[in-house]
């Protein structure tokens, strides 16, 4: 089970779950460390990933010295570094402002498109959901409806809102799946 987690899954959390004792760089390579990947490989992969995620300037900072968006980008980097097949994201934008949220969601879209990883994301946010290919609506723990994305994100967003109003207004769970 641990090996499966380590090699096939990547996790992203609402509250980032970075290790406070480690620098950004060290947090990024942690999954590789657990797999005893040679140090040179780790170093090249970190540099490449950091460039893509725009983390290069903060590589040697500790998690308490960086912003929420940076922390979430680090967490995404940590989830990506071992090239997992599935990335599980639990409210990845829950603790971020709209600018940082947009960065994170764009990043996830790109990852899904370029790396061919399936991302399963749980969110309350219709905007976040609109980035997905397929959205499953869950109300109070029960499956409610499902819609598929279309070419334009704006119209998909409108459709999601329509379903939400059908769901009965208030606070709703949105479960979204993005298929590559």
């Amino acid at each position, binding site marked *: 089970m641990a090996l499966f987690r380590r090699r096939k*899954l990547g*996790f992203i959390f609402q509250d980032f779950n970075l290790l*406070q004792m*480690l620098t950004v760089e*060290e947090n990024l390579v942690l999954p590789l460390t657990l797999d005893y990947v040679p*140090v040179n490989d780790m170093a090249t992969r970190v540099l490449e990933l950091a460039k893509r995620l725009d983390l290069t300037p903060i590589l040697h900072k500790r998690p308490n010295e960086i912003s929420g968006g940076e922390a979430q980008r680090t967490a995404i980097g940590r989830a990506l570094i071992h090239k997992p097949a599935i990335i599980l994201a639990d409210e990845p934008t829950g603790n971020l402002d709209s600018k940082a949220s947009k960065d994170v969601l764009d990043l996830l879209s790109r990852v899904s498109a370029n790396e061919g990883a399936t991302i399963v994301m749980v969110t309350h946010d219709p905007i976040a959901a609109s980035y997905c290919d397929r959205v499953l609506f869950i109300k109070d723990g029960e499956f409610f409806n499902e819609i598929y994305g279309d070419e334009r994100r704006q119209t998909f967003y409108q459709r999601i809102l329509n379903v939400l109003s059908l769901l009965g207004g208030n606070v709703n769970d949105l479960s979204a799946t993005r298929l590559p």
Partner: protein
Amino acid sequence: MTFRQLAYHNVFRNRRSYAAFFLASVVSVMVFFVYSMFIFHPLFEEDGLQVLAVRGMFIAEVVLYIFTLFFLFYSMSAFLQARSKEFGILMHLGMTKKQLNKLIFFETMILGSVSTVAGIAFGFAFSKFFFMIGREIMELESLPLYVSWQPFALTIGAFASLFIIISVISVAFIRTKGILDLLQGYWKVDEITNASRWLSFLGFLLLGISYVLASVVTDETVYTMVLIIPPLATLGTYLFFTHSVHSLLNFYKRRKGVYWHKTRLVSLAEASVKLKDSAQMFFIVTIVSTVAFLTVGTLASFMSYTGDYRESNPLGLVYISFDGNSKELQHIEGLTAELEEKELAYDLVPLVVKRQTSTFTGNDVDIIRMSEFNRLAAALGFEPAYPDRGEALFIPYSKESLKELGKSQVQTELMESGVELSIDQVYPHILFPVHTVNFNSIVVNDLDYAAIDEPLQGYADGESTFTYYAFDIPSWEETVAIGSDLTAQIERAVEQEDFSGLNFFFENPGEDYRWFKSSFAILLFIGVMVAAVFLLAAGSFIYFKLYTGLERDRKQYLLLVRLGMTEKELGRIVNRQLIPQFFLPWVVALLHSTFAFISLQVVWDEFAELSILGEMILVLTGFTIAQVLYFYLIRWRYIAHLQAS
């Protein structure tokens, strides 16, 4: 970053949490190493004192080892528990249980090797200093520093094995029920405190019983009580912290008029959560502190015994010659020659003592002539005694007898010679060591003395008198080894329980005193160092608890400040929180020790009449001052960290 580097970062970047724990381990290693330096010292011989020192230190090393094992085990498992969220993240990322064990093993070994190296380094650096103390105490010519592989090997071997044991067992105690449990972290345990009423009552009851038992101990029951009281008190303490305290707090909380009052609401609610969380820690700190107090206190009471010894043994040497002692002159000349050779000033007063039977008690009485007695008193710098004809003074043999004899008034007649005496005073100083004088000894007027002309009933003329040679030697502690052949003869007779053919008695209180004093000083020296390790460990438990809760406390204070709490009120809340953490176990430990000392006093009363009250107050005050200083130090750091956010 390799796997090992991960372990390394975990330790070194967590150093603030590890600090107290690390300090206690370093001091423990250091003390252990210093003892080893003594034990393997090439100049130590098979001499009485040095054998005692080596044995004492060996026992202390064993105690230290066992204690450090428990201390590290407890701290380590508490520490790992506090890090459960971190382990949860690691396992979420796919760390296997095996890898987790390996990580913890590495971390413990890093910590262990750093503290062993640091402890040995400090120990070696300070060993010259400790050797100087040791040399003073054991009165050796010199105790030079030496370098040998043995102390290093012993210390490294002992602590390497210790840390390996710790890392293996503490791993087994991480709860890995589920990753989610771990992720939710350590503070999940803040549930509402449910104290069992029955157990709280039992806690008070057990403590009460042990205190009562401790205060009514007599010298007959003391040995059974030693077996009964400590387990009772330990169990009582445990229940007290796990249940009784909470019942008290709940009782307090139920009175809303008192509870919902200003900052009390916050601080009481906080206190009950913290107390519950720290109940076991409090229990351990209390027991460890009690043991430390008792160790130092008991050893300090030995020191009061040595202080008392000087007062009850003012004579430098005592030689008593009985009837038929052909070597009397030879021995006395030998002793004076030895004293002169060592260039010691002395005053020799021979006292011819007559023995008679008292009609009052029916026992035999030793009678000393006033003129001879006053010569001795003058030599010692005490006032003379002038009993009139028909009067006499008691001669006290101990402090206790001084008090008792002062109250008694006796009309008696010396049966054999028909001399009538009224005895209603006691000479106010102790002149003779306790074993060298009859419990019934008196000073009489020279005329009365001359009137004693009949021998003691059933004895010949010569047998009913003896000569007591009292040596007054101002520098009496320098008499070591004087008359060693006489001491050897006495010792041999005592060993074989055969006093026939031994027509004299010899005692060298100076030498005895030196021996007592040095051996007690050695024990105190050993005990204080062990107690210091104990107290540091107790302190580090408290420090550790505070630091694991710091992050959470900081968030809470931030919230309170936003709700409009002033800085002054914040200070008050911090005090309310820290004071119980620091002083609750402390007060309980002080109470425990006080009652233990009451029992100890009974034991002391049995074989040496002296009071240990002064020493006890000194020891307990000293510890309290240290604790208060520690409190202010931690409080200062704690508030600084809280406000750093």
